[in-house]
């Protein structure tokens, strides 16, 4: 199947899109993630036909219905429901593989050591989910809704893998930071033409095709998705694509789910120790690792009020900033969590340029003399990159627009009080995040962010440090390739009087389970459920 370029604007059918693509259901304070396995395909399909996931069309109502369900499937789940291999293979290869079934993928995503899938609570073998049923309601009503939905599922012969609950921490993640501030804005009305000169600057407005299948992505193309020949059974249920194939992917998305347990006590214990060693408060230390202050505002000295497409006034002072004024990480460390998760870079280093510079940039050259105080202006020429070449370190991370995800996570467990003394002998109750995100291309979006930006110890020309929150701290490479190289550092270049390198960061976040799901459009769901 080839990606077909199209400039056609397909009308958006809001009744076909599951609402989670556009809302996190914030008014519904409680959620349950029900993981199920199919035992009898025909009974399961009949059960599916009785479900009514909330569509985007409901968002035009004054308020969302009090009980909301959304549904997604793993590749194994689709197979168990009777979908043919020839159709299944047209889904994204990463989805077909699954998140936990390939050693190379585990190495790239940092799922090694304590994070290895063999240690997961769910997601592997008999505990691999087929279906994810997401339920949202009020704290009072969620249990009744879950019980009712589960009874129906069990009656249809499905088996339960697990039911995971969230807990409302008021938009604050368990370490204590305000969460969910930075999200891409999607081009629902679709005036955006990606790849123009404007994208030399960072954009937070993305083509809808980065979220939903069947629409133009940031390359102006349609992401590969299953297209069914007219001879396939029940194909009339599906909307048609431009070539008259049944469009199974249209209005669908890939949902990545990772359950991340957070060691809150361990985090603050290490942070306090490091803060004492370097003479700052523990809040300052933690904020430098996250890249935001506890209340979610950007670190001081980063100018806010920058004009960024897709960042509206609601986020003024919180999301209208860039890192281009801080190339060396003096205000916000280069390795800080938010800078890895989204480096806020445009297509060319330094942002939009004149015609001559634009041309030269393609060749890695620039007319701009680099005056900022970095090693490139150090007085030795030997063994350094000199003008007119762009320092490759400054261009290590570019074009963030191809690597964004829409997060839909919720916290779980009970939020511990970091100030309370904690006896290490008594295990703290588990807390963390149900990390859920949506994207149209798992390899280029989620896996890229997780692998090349979060888990990599070489992100942006750094050395020996992974994400200060999410890193697994596993040495890499290991014997016999090389003597184990540490990945447990964290560099704070802005620390006076000189840059501070911490080492020996413990693992703060552990993966407890995960899966790649396909979140179908509602016509696609009807097709999946059809006999």
């Amino acid at each position, binding site marked *: 199947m080839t990606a077909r370029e199209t400039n056609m604007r397909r009308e958006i059918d809001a009744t076909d899109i599951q609402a989670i693509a556009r809302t996190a259901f914030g008014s519904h304070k409680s959620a349950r993630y029900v993981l199920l396995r199919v035992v009898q395909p025909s009974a399961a399909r009949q059960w599916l036909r009785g479900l009514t996931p909330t569509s985007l069309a409901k968002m035009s109502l004054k308020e969302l219905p009090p009980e909301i369900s959304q549904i997604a499937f793993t590749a194994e789940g689709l197979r168990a429901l009777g979908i043919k291999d020839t159709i299944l293979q047209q889904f994204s290869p990463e989805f077909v593989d699954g998140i936990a079934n390939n050693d190379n993928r585990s190495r790239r995503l940092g799922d090694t050591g304590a994070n290895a899938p063999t240690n997961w609570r769910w997601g592997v073998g008999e505990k691999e989910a087929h279906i994810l049923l997401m339920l949202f309601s009020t704290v009072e009503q969620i249990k009744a809704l879950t019980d009712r939905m589960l009874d129906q599922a069990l009656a249809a012969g499905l088996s339960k893998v697990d039911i995971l609950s969230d807990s409302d921490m008021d938009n604050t993640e368990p370490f204590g930071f305000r969460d969910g501030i930075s999200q891409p804005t999607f081009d629902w009305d679709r005036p955006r033409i990606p790849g123009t000169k404007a994208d030399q600057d960072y954009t937070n407005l993305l083509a809808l095709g980065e979220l939903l299948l069947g629409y133009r992505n940031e390359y102006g193309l349609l992401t590969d998705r299953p297209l069914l020949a007219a001879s396939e059974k029940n194909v009339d249920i599906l909307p048609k694509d431009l070539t008259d194939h049944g469009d199974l992917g249209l209005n669908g998305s890939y949902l990545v789910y990772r359950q991340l347990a957070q060691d809150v006590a361990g985090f603050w214990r290490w942070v306090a120790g490091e803060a004492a060693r370097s*003479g700052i408060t523990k809040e300052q230390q933690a904020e430098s690792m996250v890249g935001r202050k506890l209340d979610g505002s950007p670190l001081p000295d980063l100018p806010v009020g920058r004009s960024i497409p897709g960042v509206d006034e609601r986020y003024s002072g919180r999301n209208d900033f860039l890192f281009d004024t801080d190339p060396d990480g003096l205000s916000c460390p280069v390795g800080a969590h938010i800078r890895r998760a989204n480096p806020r870079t445009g297509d060319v280093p330094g942002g939009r340029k004149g015609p001559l510079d634009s041309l030269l940039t393609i060749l890695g050259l620039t007319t701009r003399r680099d005056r900022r105080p970095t*090693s490139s202006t150090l007085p030795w020429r030997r063994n*350094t990159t000199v003008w007119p070449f762009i320092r*490759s*370190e400054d261009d290590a991370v570019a*074009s963030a627009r191809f690597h964004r995800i829409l997060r839909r996570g919720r916290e779980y467990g009970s939020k511990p009080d970091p100030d309370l003394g904690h006896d290490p002998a008594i295990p703290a109750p588990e807390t963390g995040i149900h990390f859920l995100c949506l994207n149209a291309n798992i390899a280029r979006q989620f896996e890229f962010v997780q692998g090349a930006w979060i888990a990599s110890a070489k992100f942006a020309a750094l*050395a020996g440090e992974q994400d200060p929150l999410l890193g697994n701290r596993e040495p890499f490479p290991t014997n016999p*390739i090389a003597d184990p190289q540490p990945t447990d550092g964290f560099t704070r270049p802005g620390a006076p*009087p000189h840059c501070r*390198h911490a080492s020996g960061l413990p693992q703060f976040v552990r993966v407890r389970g995960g899966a790649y799901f396909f979140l179908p459009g509602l016509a696609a769901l009807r097709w999946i459920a059809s006999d």
Partner: protein
Amino acid sequence: MIPQDSFIIVAKIDPVQLDKLRSLLKTMTFADRTGMADPDNPLVRFRDFDEIHFARFVVLADNTLNDRAHYPQLPSREPFYLCFMVDCDGSADELLARMAQRPDGLRTIFGHCEEFGQTTDLLGWLRAHRVKPAASYVNWVGRSVGQVREEARLHDLLRAALSGIEKSEPQKILVRLRQSIMLPEPLKPAPPTPLSWRIRNVAHLLLPFVVALVCLALFPIITIVLLGVGSVLFVIALRWHEQTDPFVDQPYDANRVAELRGGEDHDVTNQYTAMGSIKPGRFRLWTEVAILYGINWVARHIFTRGSLARIGTIHFAHWVFLDQGRRAFFCSNYDGGHEAYMDDFINKAGFGLNLSFSSGIGYPTTDWLLARGAWLEQEFKRFQRRHQIPTDVWYKAYPGLTAHDLARNSRIRNGFEKAAMSDDEIRRWLAEI
């Protein structure tokens, strides 16, 4: 400085010996690290050759000959080759001679090739099977393996020492750092650049200009007319080819990609080998020859300090023709994961991919040689994965280090050796550590 060189041996494999050869090559690698060479393997003890940066053995087994069904004028079968490629410091020919002084392993390996017998003169045979790459790229011309290793050691020592030094005035920190570092051996100064290399390099640099000037001086009118008419004809031919080249589907083969992935991400650097057929006819071949000459020239004379255009993650790369230009293969050593490498390439230098690979059968359609092509993202990614072949044995002399690490370590060394630095310079230098 010590300039870098490479040798590429390409020899036809005796078809009945193919499976045996693959099993043999496997014995040179670590058991659970697909394709990663054991530096101490008894066949070729890479560790003993301090001048080798990267080396690989790869069975050039073309996965895409079926695509020639669209071009009946091309033969439907081609031989399997064994490729032995080494990037090194100093003269590659001298290295080859030294390696041939330990003949047993190489004899065992190349004994699986045609025209290699028990009495064959190994070195002469290897030299006879050496092929010249059409284009080569070196990340940093003049940075030797020895320098890489001693600078990495220096960085490790400085980083460890710095964590034990209390905050104070920059000058005091510098003094204490320099005092506390005990290098096992002093940093070696760069040896003088060989004069012969300098002369050849300048000649290579000037050659296109000299040819142009001579043509213009001797036959000004003919040259200008030929250039003008030639350009017009070229563009017409190019557009005709771009619009009429058959579309060759590039399906995704999950099993094959799984096999390729098995050999990836064991280190911070990965290997890449890909091969395919060039579209038949003089137009595509000559265009490719000219483009690779250009790439080779800019790589040799302009992009010699850490990046090829905007790509800063490639250590070494080679483009090589095979079978009188019917096929070609490409090898590179790059930092980071495969997907990230491809994204980087498409987004920063998609035009370069189009230039250097669009003459290949099945390459996504380009516009005006530069546009589209690689920017047809998923089609291009399937194309390149489909043409990629597993690298049977891959050796890197400095595992754990990326090109950015190497450049940073060199900068740190410069500061370490500098007689005096201002407070500000020291602060910047410390930040690098």
